């Protein structure tokens, strides 16, 4: 379980990158949902938390592959492999990421 930041420091529509290995992107959607996925696009080498967030979709800033934050699956090319998704909780106003591998549910 990794503390990310205070909930109030990640406004809706924003995202933040956590420098784990591999890095994780945490997203706060306009609808107020929190999601975490592996931050590196499965196509080439771009940081998804730098992408374009729309609803539950994040568009990669390099070649516009789009991923569904709920499943990690790409919804269009050029990415073809899913990113791992991670569970997010908020405790005492702090956002935490539970890495999938730690919970034994690695992709």
């Amino acid at each position, binding site marked *: 379980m990794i503390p990310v930041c205070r909930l109030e420091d990640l406004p809706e529509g924003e995202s933040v990158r956590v420098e784990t290995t591999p890095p994780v992107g945490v997203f706060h959607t306009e609808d107020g949902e929190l999601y975490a996925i592996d931050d590196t696009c499965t196509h*080439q*080498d*771009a*940081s998804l938390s*730098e*992408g*374009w967030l729309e609803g539950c979709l994040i*568009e990669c*800033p*390099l*070649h516009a592959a789009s991923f569904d934050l709920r499943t990690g699956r790409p919804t269009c*090319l*050029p990415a*073809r492999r899913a990113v791992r998704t991670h569970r997010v909780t908020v405790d005492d106003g702090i956002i935490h990421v539970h890495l999938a591998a730690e919970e034994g549910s690695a992709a």
Partner: protein
Amino acid sequence: MRTVTIVGASLSGLYAARELRAQGFEGRLVIVGDEAHRPYDRPPLSKDFLTGRTDETQLALTDPEETADLQAEWLLGIRARGLDPRTRTVLLDDGRAVPTDGLVIATGASARRLPGDHLTGIHTLRTLDDARALREELTRGPRRVVVIGAGFIGAETASSCAALGHRVTVIEAAPLPLLPQLGPEMAAVCAELHRRGGVELITGTGVAALRGTGAVMAVTGALGEGAVTGVAGACGAAGAMTGVAGACGAAGAVTGVAGALGAGAVTGVAEPYGEGVVTGVAGSHGWGAVTGAAGPPGSSAVAGSAGPRGSGTVTGVALTDGRTLPADIVIIGIGATPNTGWLTGSTLALHDGVLCDDGCVTSLPQVVAVGDVARVGGSRAEHWTSATEQPRVAVANLLAGRTVETVCSVPYFWSDQYGARIQFAGRRQDGDTVRIVEGDATAPDGGGFLALYEREGCTTAVLAVDRPRPFLRVRRELARGVGNVRAPSQSS
């Protein structure tokens, strides 16, 4: 439409195949590609593939599952050599003929070459085989590398070579690299990247000759070959704008050849990754005078029949300012020419690409062209993104039998050099002013910045170095046709 043939089994060809199936084409689909490989991605070749961070499996554009779903007949390692529009037949090198109702031309472009570039140690970088050969040579210990041309491919390759610990010099004929693409202010910033990466950049100087050991006989053959592959392009339309005053294989003959041909000074304008227009040719026997495959050889000196190939090894690059740079490896990055040779005599209009309307449709409604080979609505792009966007429109029009959709997108490309990610979108023109709206373009340690190009109060283009997020925002606004882009705030 019962049979559709796609010629060119790379990025745009594969995307066209996907679109054909996605848009409901259920007929026979034939894909012809002259490379033996399944479709692979080229951008990593000059970047992570050369440095060993990416391997061949990661270059693949498709997997066996998708390949099976496409239900196509793949004819790989076979070149199309002609199109007979009367009988609607694609002719293949192995003598076969494919009768077809619809044709997608996706033959891309080939690296420009220089006469004499068959010497061992001289490379171009366009294909996986090119990259394999270069990578192999770069793993044999420290080398002196000279890169001819400071366009994107030249710069990326130089950066990769430097990262591998080689001593690298880049030669660029123009006063600054990427001048036509980025304009003087931002071109100066890119020039600085080379220095920061420990690479020597020599600008304003052309290449007079490639020097090597070995047989002098090589020269005639090498030049003859150079002449028929169209050296005019090598100087004039080079994306890299590298002037070539005469190049040949072996040292002994340099002066004779240079004399016979004269030193044609050529200026060109070019768009990223090519899209060049020859704007002027000086010198009656300059390389400019030796035009493409069909053209007459410039002089008897270059008419030389095949002759023995350059069997020597490269030793250096002679510059037009009289200097010679010693080199163990020379990489020629002077742009690419569209692969239209096989369409000669087909009635299709060809002029630096296959001419098509805004919907990628050629003069024949059953023939569309996409990617690097296509001159769509008057301009040809050599960008990954156009090669992936055009097929959707082209296929819709092909299946409709006429132009029902046009391509409308904001040109976009990216480049990775010396650890910096450069992204550019829009249509810049000379005279546009540049405004830095984020970061500092002159900071010695980099750190990235975002620059807007403006004309008469409107944003025409955007350039970012290591600022993907605000870049994306501006790119989207440009695509939406927002004339005056809001400068992204520093916090975002």
